């Protein structure tokens, strides 16, 4: 099956940032259709039928999430766009916002209409300042064009949208940490329940969707759920943006149907490995996803298949590791990242991630002890499932998978004085 391009159609040939280019491509037609011909309930039903699953990492069905928000409430409701793209290896939301900011805005307005929301914030990671400025410009264009603000397209629906810049904290990609951060606090996750759909931003019902998730919405309205489903899997509709990085010939963003085989993505679309390099391992869904060995890549890239393979699709970020790269150095970077980004709220995570980092560091520095790998396994196991938010598992699972799947290599490097760095 040759899939249609849902998200990146038209981006190859023309400058696409300006509103005029977006309108020429049929932009904001879906919004017009939704506001003039569809009830909010119909929008939610269509998105449900399309099996649109969240593109941020958790893979939760978007339509279902929208339907959890109370229809009538005496409180304001909010939309938060999760543009805090911090999952290492992931750069697809940056690509979308850089090349097609209006696609996100249109998706956000439609979502707001469906749920009855009148105010929204795009929470974008602070490092993406250039992208944030582009969004600011696009939002100004959208206001001037009457697709944001009061009485959108003359249909009596109001929606305001602002860009809110983060300041360097991976944890703020976790939805409740994002809410805390937006409220002007440390980005520390909240205990759930209550879920944001009932008690979210400023204590009000809130929808939080990833950039790519919202960017799928206009085409679902324009071409229908059936068409969207044809371009993906029955329980995971549409195409996905895969971020390819590491030891491949052609790193970049690839739009492919959900369910495309990981092997095909690496060897056909990304051009295979760099000359002379052999495949050792793949991290298939951003750094938090458990690693796959070279013999485990005949797996379809959809939420359920990756889960069945013991990993996760996560943010669809594929990091390709070549045979020359020592897994101990990969483990060290993974451990360093989670130590740095742990918010410190839960003891197993705060202590565990820094302890693991120290143990791995001494292994790198040839001071490792025979029992160190078991110690790392024990520490990671003690984090898993014992934290308030998914960060704990996100730290523990890749570490456990690297140690378990590459134990022989790690033990050998423990006993040798050989080179363990990336740049051997």
């Amino acid at each position, binding site marked *: 099956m040759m899939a249609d391009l849902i998200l990146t159609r038209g981006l190859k040939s023309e400058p696409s940032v300006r509103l005029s280019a977006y309108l020429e491509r049929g932009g904001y037609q879906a919004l017009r259709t939704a506001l003039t011909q569809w009830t909010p309930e119909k929008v939610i039903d269509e998105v449900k039928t399309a099996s649109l699953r969240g593109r941020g990492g958790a893979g939760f069905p978007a339509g279902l999430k929208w339907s959890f928000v109370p229809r009538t409430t005496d409180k304001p409701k909010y939309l938060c766009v999760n543009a805090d793209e911090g999952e290492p290896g992931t750069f697809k939301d940056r690509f979308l916002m850089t090349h097609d900011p209006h696609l996100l805005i249109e998706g956000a307005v439609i979502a707001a209409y469906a749920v009855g929301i009148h105010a929204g914030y795009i929470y974008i*990671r*602070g*490092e993406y300042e250039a992208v944030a400025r582009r969004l600011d410009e696009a939002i100004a264009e959208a206001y001037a064009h009457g697709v944001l603000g009061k009485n959108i397209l003359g249909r009596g629906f109001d929606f305001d949208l602002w860009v809110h810049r983060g300041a360097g904290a991976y944890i703020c990609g976790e939805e409740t940490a994002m809410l805390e951060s937006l*409220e*002007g*606090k440390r980005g520390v996750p909240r205990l759930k329940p209550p879920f944001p759909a009932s008690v979210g931003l400023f204590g009000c019902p809130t929808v939080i969707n990833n950039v790519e998730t919202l960017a799928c919405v206009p085409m679902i309205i324009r071409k229908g759920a059936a068409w969207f489903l044809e371009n993906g899997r029955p329980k995971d509709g549409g195409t996905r943006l895969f971020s390819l990085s590491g030891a491949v010939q052609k*790193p970049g963003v690839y739009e492919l149907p959900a369910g495309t085989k990981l092997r095909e993505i690496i060897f056909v679309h990304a051009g295979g490995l760099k000359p002379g390099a052999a495949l050792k391992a793949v991290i298939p869904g951003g750094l938090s996803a458990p690693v796959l060995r070279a013999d485990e890549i005949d797996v379809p890239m959809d939420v359920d298949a990756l889960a069945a393979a013991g990993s996760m699709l996560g943010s669809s970020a594929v990091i390709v590791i070549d045979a020359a790269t020592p897994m101990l150095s990969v483990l060290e970077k993974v451990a360093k990242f989670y130590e740095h980004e742990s918010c410190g709220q839960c003891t197993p995570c705060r202590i565990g991630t820094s302890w693991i980092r120290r143990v791995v560091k001494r292994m790198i520095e040839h001071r490792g002890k025979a029992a160190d790998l078991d110690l790392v396994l024990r520490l990671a196991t003690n984090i898993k499932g014992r934290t308030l938010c998914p960060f704990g598992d996100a730290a523990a699972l890749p570490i456990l998978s690297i140690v378990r799947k590459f134990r022989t290599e790690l033990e050998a490097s423990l006993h040798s004085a050989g080179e363990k760095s990336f*740049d051997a």
Partner: protein
Amino acid sequence: MSFTFSAELEPKIGALLLRYPTRRAALLPVLRLIQDEHGHISADAERRVAEILDLTPINVREVVTFYTMLTRSPVGRFHLQVCSNVSCGLAGGDRVSAYLQAKLGVRPGETTPDGKYTLTEVECLGACDEAPCMMVNFDFYGHLEAARVDEILDGLA
């Protein structure tokens, strides 16, 4: 010593406050504005921000210390932030950091004596297709190698 907002900052802060139902929600954007103007966030600035947002000074301090991009001490005119995560590592990111350390005579976290450069190793910058990469202040540079790093540094006025 007291801290006063510049004439440019006042209206920007006023506009920010209109976006949120609470004054506190404007904290991160206000801190970013101050840091962009002053290079860092001093204790005096923290106290002044607390005043205008109806917060206690500790409400501000705990936020400043939580977020990596906010800094309480001055950094160099050019803040070189080199990615040290896996995708950049696979493309030679550690080499880039080592090269900058040798060239500038500083370790990560340090500033050159003339105050021109601060070198920091950071986590993934979300530009792995251009690995290895770094940010200089808010500008991105990818596909780094020694010659390219020299060229970039020469171009910084």
